[in-house]
């Protein structure tokens, strides 16, 4: 072996053989997990609360549907509950927004909201007889399968990220798709109900649960942790209670999924992090920095 130092260059004819591997230079610029920030358990649990809330909403909706179908719930009561929830939710929304927008614009917004909510209310009322018979010709088996598929799509595509404070709410395509899936699902389920008022109540409730509530949820996510936890607990308990009187097995399954999503899945993610092995080196495609 020659005394000449090996150099990492190609233009020079070196006295080392071509398969010489210099221990000092070889893979010296390899970096493993350079930008790796490990997740910790409790923040992950908190982040998964949004998913739990969404799943609980779906469960509550299904319980309400079954009760409507079995005529054990008066549709009028559901309408009143929905209206009460809407007013409560709207007040909460305004309360969260009050710090950042001026009074004049808020008043204008308020009138606009009132106008559009009355419009939606009346439109749904007018449409409910049509919606009731829309898929009446389709067999119930197909409807169950279709609505199950649509709810899965809804849960998969929903936007679980918290809203940015002060930023404009920008709808992503997937979250719009998610909302559409849920509304379609409730429309097809509505055709299984017996009278027009029940259909109206169900659709109104679904608009509430799948179009308006996710917006409020995203806004709440950006606020205090304790609200988040309380809301999650409330929705989960409500969904389980509503289902428990209908079927014990189903409520057990619901409880199991909610616990799995909230507590077990974050644990698995934290555990799986030890297998993370991100390799970076000079062969990576550089990211150009343009002013």
């Amino acid at each position, binding site marked *: 072996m020659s005394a000449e130092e090996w150099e990492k260059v*190609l233009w020079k004819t070196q006295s080392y053989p071509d398969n010489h*591997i210099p221990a000092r230079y070889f*893979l010296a610029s390899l970096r493993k997990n350079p930008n790796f920030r490990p997740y910790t358990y409790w923040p992950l649990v908190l982040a998964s609360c949004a998913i739990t809330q969404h799943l609980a909403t779906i469960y509550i909706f299904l319980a309400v549907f079954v009760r409507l179908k079995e005529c054990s719930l008066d549709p009028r009561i559901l309408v009143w509950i929905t209206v009460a929830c809407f007013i409560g939710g709207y007040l909460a929304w305004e309360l969260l927004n009050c710090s950042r927008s001026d009074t004049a614009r808020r008043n204008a917004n308020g009138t606009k909201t009132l106008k559009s909510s009355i419009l939606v209310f009346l439109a749904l009322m007018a449409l409910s007889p049509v919606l009731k018979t829309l898929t009446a010709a389709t067999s119930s088996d197909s409807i169950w399968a279709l609505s199950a598929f649509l709810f899965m799509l809804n849960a998969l595509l929903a936007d679980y990220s918290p809203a940015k404070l002060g930023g404009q709410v920008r709808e992503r395509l997937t979250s719009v798709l998610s909302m559409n899936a849920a509304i379609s699902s409730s429309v097809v389920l509505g055709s299984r109900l017996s009278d027009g008022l029940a259909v109206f109540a169900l659709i109104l409730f679904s608009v509430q649960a799948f179009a308006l509530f996710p917006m409020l949820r995203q806004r709440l996510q950006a606020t205090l942790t304790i609200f988040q936890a309380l809301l999650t607990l409330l929705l989960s308990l409500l969904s389980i209670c509503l289902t428990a009187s209908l079927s014990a097995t189903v409520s057990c399954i619901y409880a199991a999924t909610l616990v799995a999503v909230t507590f077990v899945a974050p644990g698995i993610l934290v555990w799986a992090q030890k297998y993370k092995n*991100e*390799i970076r080196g*000079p*062969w990576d495609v550089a990211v*150009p920095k343009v*002013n």
Partner: protein
Amino acid sequence: MDPLSIAMITDFFHPNVGGVENHIFMLSANLLRKGHKVIVITHSHDPDRVGIRWMLPSLKVYYLPYPTIASSATLPNYFTFLPYFRTIILREHITLIHAHASLSPLGQEGILHAHLMGVRTVFTDHSLFGFEDAASILTNKLLEAALKNVDAVICVSHIGRENTVLRGQLFEKTDEDPSTVAVSGNVFVIPNALVADQFKPSQIPDVSQPSSKPLCVTIVVISRLAYRKGIDLLVAAAPRICSAFPNVKFVIGGTGPKLNELLQMREKHLLQDRIELLGPVRHSDVRDVLVRGSIFLNTSLTESFGIAILEAACAGLYVVSTRVGGVPEILPEDMISFANPEEDDVFRAMSEAITIVSQGKHDPWNAHKRVKGFYDWFQVAERTEKVYESVIKSDQRDLWTRIRRTMELGPFAGLIYVVILIVNCVFFLILEWSIPREDLHFVWMHWNRDYFIELSQKEARKTSFI
């Protein structure tokens, strides 16, 4: 060493043009000069390039009738190549195959089949790949499987070798201590080369006026206009350079998806008379474009070897390049200026280069002479020959060792590849029975260079009498 019969196997070959294609052709030509027998096996090209063709100098090319799926690569199907492969290897009496490019399924399949006929394998990797996206993970696994049983691997740069070793997991258990692993000893670095005489600087050096300042500095860019070539940096930096140096012009050759952005930039900054877009440039015209300028700018975001930089340096241009991949290895520091892949830094490096060139500190002919001394295809062929020699001398792995090594791929991938390996052996036995070796048309006549020269001279004399 004794002359070998070598088959180069790849999806990327003439009539396509590019770094890999040129590498294979030049390596084959120089191996032929050294007395070996070389053939190339590749896929067919539309409309009618299929079958056997001859290329100068006496290089036989088999174009197999396979349709391509994407970027001129065939479908990885593992078995369908075997009937052709067996026939070609047997009738040409091939003793060693040399597969090129990691994204060439034909090459990987060749490595898989070669052991059935007792043929040795060498693989050359030409490009760099990351590890993070799904496509890389998949192709890296395919490469790892192919390289488990290859006899030697050649990479074109030191960075390329580090990359290939990691991607192909080319580690072996050490003999002294079976618990530790080390990089296997059959991974070589042999760079590309270029034909220096094809890239001569333009004017004869003017000794009487060494400090004559060029009135206008022309910057040449020849590249595919794609994201990976860093055209975004060029689009951002070019107007700044133009406004800072009124005597600078750009000549940009090549085409690609980023062409529109260049055109828009030129229009927005009213630089139509200072930025010339040539469109696609043929490889034979590259030198004529290069010698129009005095600085070559390369803004690639990743580069395994950067043959374009070498060609420009050889044609006497001062080179400015981003510091990526294998580029820092190919030229000494005083012939090239580096910039980080940032707009500001490219501008800084270009300003320095323009100052150096306009002060006349860069001598094109000296640069040409130096590059000529660095790289030579004949040396590349000699170094490759040494790899072949070491492969031929080494022992061939038996089937059981192959199966055991393939199982190291993992419980899932390993099993799949063992099944492929065994089915392949059965398929080979069926072929041995259905197309017996006795019925093959063996090649006995080879291109005889001396006889060819003699004949052509005779022909020339005949015509001169008339």
